[in-house]
């Protein structure tokens, strides 16, 4: 996808939260691209900045959070400097969103049909009858049985999995170019999770939308994503093709993370353990943010901050892969 223009291009994004005790940097110099029909997984533990990255792209950051630097390009057009009114038209029409809790994404006072037709009519020149027909088709497409009856029901009349299907229909209703899904399956039971992931992936393929899938669940990423970005303390630690990152992790953090996930069929007496926990934003270590917990740290790790560098098929922000320096020394 190198020759084609990416759908989403995030360049050196930086998000800050000014507080009384100083400015916290929640997302620090994050760059990535998502191509057409591609699913980019973004994983990390709580506090890694993955959700903030998503909300910054669609400009729904809760104040005092603000974009302090970097650019966001959608289909070759810069969107981080649009006015609030212009941005409102991008959201929903060109970028669809699916959040973790389907109940809070839907208005409990309106029928599902009204919410769908309203969204469709806001962004497309359609009559109410046409919009309603489109809405029924969409509900059918996301696997809701008897869509023509259920369209007149309220969100509370749907089960959790069905609600998430409605939210996906809502995100897809005007054929957006880009879908940002933030933990779309976390609130659901495992058997439903598999259904929703499959649905999301199929629909995005059919609609040719690019997807940014934010989750803490490596299993979901393995099933869905084409590429994956692993975030740690506000930065991307490693980014690469999903099979490569999972089977052949290049960053010690990814390696530790993969080892700490129990797997059915692997008989281990103990899981790999990363000592300590993710640093708070107020006390991010110097140099590589992971160095105090890293089993492979060496001289420069606590002084110099590594940028992403090529490591096999992936790129990792780790001095272990600093071949450029090694070659220069020769």
């Amino acid at each position: 996808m190198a020759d084609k223009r990416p759908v989403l291009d995030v360049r050196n994004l930086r998000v800050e939260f000014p507080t009384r005790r100083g400015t916290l940097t929640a997302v620090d110099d994050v760059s990535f691209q998502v191509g057409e029909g591609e699913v980019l997984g973004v994983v990390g533990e709580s506090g890694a900045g993955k959700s903030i990255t998503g909300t910054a792209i669609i400009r729904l950051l809760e104040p005092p959070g603000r974009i302090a630097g970097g650019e966001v390009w959608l289909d070759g057009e810069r969107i981080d400097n649009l006015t609030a009114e212009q941005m409102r038209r991008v959201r929903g029409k060109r970028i669809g969103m699916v959040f973790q809790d389907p109940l809070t994404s839907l208005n409990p006072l309106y029928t599902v049909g009204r919410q769908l037709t309203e969204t469709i009519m806001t962004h497309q020149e359609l009559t109410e009858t046409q919009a309603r027909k489109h809405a029924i088709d969409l509900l059918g497409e996301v696997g809701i049985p008897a869509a023509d009856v259920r369209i007149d029901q309220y969100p509370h009349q749907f089960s959790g999995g069905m609600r998430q299907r409605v939210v996906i229909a809502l995100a897809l209703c005007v054929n957006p170019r880009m879908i940002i899904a933030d933990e779309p399956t976390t609130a659901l039971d495992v058997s439903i999770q598999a259904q929703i992931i499959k649905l999301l992936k199929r629909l995005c393929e059919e609609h040719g939308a690019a997807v940014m899938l934010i989750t803490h669940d490596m299993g979901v990423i393995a099933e869905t994503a084409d590429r994956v970005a692993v975030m740690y303390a506000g930065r991307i630690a490693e980014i690469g093709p999903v099979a490569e990152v999972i089977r052949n992790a290049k960053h010690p953090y990814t390696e530790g993370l993969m080892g700490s996930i129990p797997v059915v069929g692997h008989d281990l007496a103990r899981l790999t353990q990363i000592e300590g926990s993710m640093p708070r934003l107020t006390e991010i270590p110097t140099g590589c943010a992971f160095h105090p917990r890293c089993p492979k740290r060496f001289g420069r790790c606590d002084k110099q901050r590594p940028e992403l560098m090529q490591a096999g098929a992936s790129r990792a922000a780790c001095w272990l892969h600093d071949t450029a320096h090694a070659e220069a020394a020769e």
Partner: protein
Amino acid sequence: MSAPPILQVDGLSKAFDVSAPILRRLLHGEGRTYLRAVDGVSFEIPKGKTVSLVGESGCGKSTVARLVVGLYTPTEGKVVFDGHDMAQVQGRAEMAKLRRRFQMIFQDPYASLNPRWRVLDIIAEPIRAHGLMSDDTAIARRVGELLEQVRLSAKDGEKFPHEFSGGQRQRISIARALASNPEFLVCDEPTSALDVSVQAQILNLMKDLQTELGLSYLFISHDLAVVYHISDYLGVMYLGRLVEVGPAREIFRDPQHPYTRMLLDAIPDLEMTGKKRIPVAGEVPSPIAPPPGCHFHPRCPFANERCRTETPLPVHIGERDVRCHAVEEGRLEAEVAAAKAKAPAAVA
């Protein structure tokens, strides 16, 4: 299982009254409504072993945990702890003696520790409540030992819960649970609120403590990979019933009940083998009006007329108990193989 089990649960049921308010019942002529959260559950926990209960939300696994520690009283059936039927224990003193020997760890380490107490007092509470020690310096020394046992520092006793991260708080909960020298711990989703790397630390700690102290665990979880890692025995619950119970490794290797098969199939595949799956539709029905016969029949691709009307009873297969007509009739294997052949290759 030659030694007597530490815990025996026999035909345990719990019904909650979820009736409408009395005025509404009188006006509309409605009767009372009951929700059978747990329905005839039987299993036992051998000493020093871990038994896990898995299932989706609303299947009754947490209710079983609460019944076992006595936070709820059973509607039917009994809980036998080390030979004592908990319902037959006479007098508070006798009960207190037994209560000291089992403890519970809860899911949310942010809700289960009193934010206004110092960690020292939180951990000392069971020691004081059971009158195990009265001398304050002795208690402080014991709390220090407990903190070190869960890999925290003895000095952490002076701090308040908000000064700790989620994983450290869960360690404090474990230290508190260990304070009365219990033999048996009930752990209700102890790692679900934690990040994976922290979860690994807690699971490792729990395994170490089991070896060091000879603890037995009842482990409640919805995460099958975690359960695989920690359990010796496994029970799979669906809408209040235990549909399959037996040695964990055996169930994972060769699941019998169609629901167990479905759950195992639904685990996201971290190794990307593109395994074949039997597609399962639908969601868990409301536990207030569960389907008749086998509760799983509306979602089961192998259900027939008998499944829709007759409640399956446990069938013994080796060390396992399975509640499924198709397994009992011996028709399931052939039908599963046929369905797999038809299934689309890999969900990818």
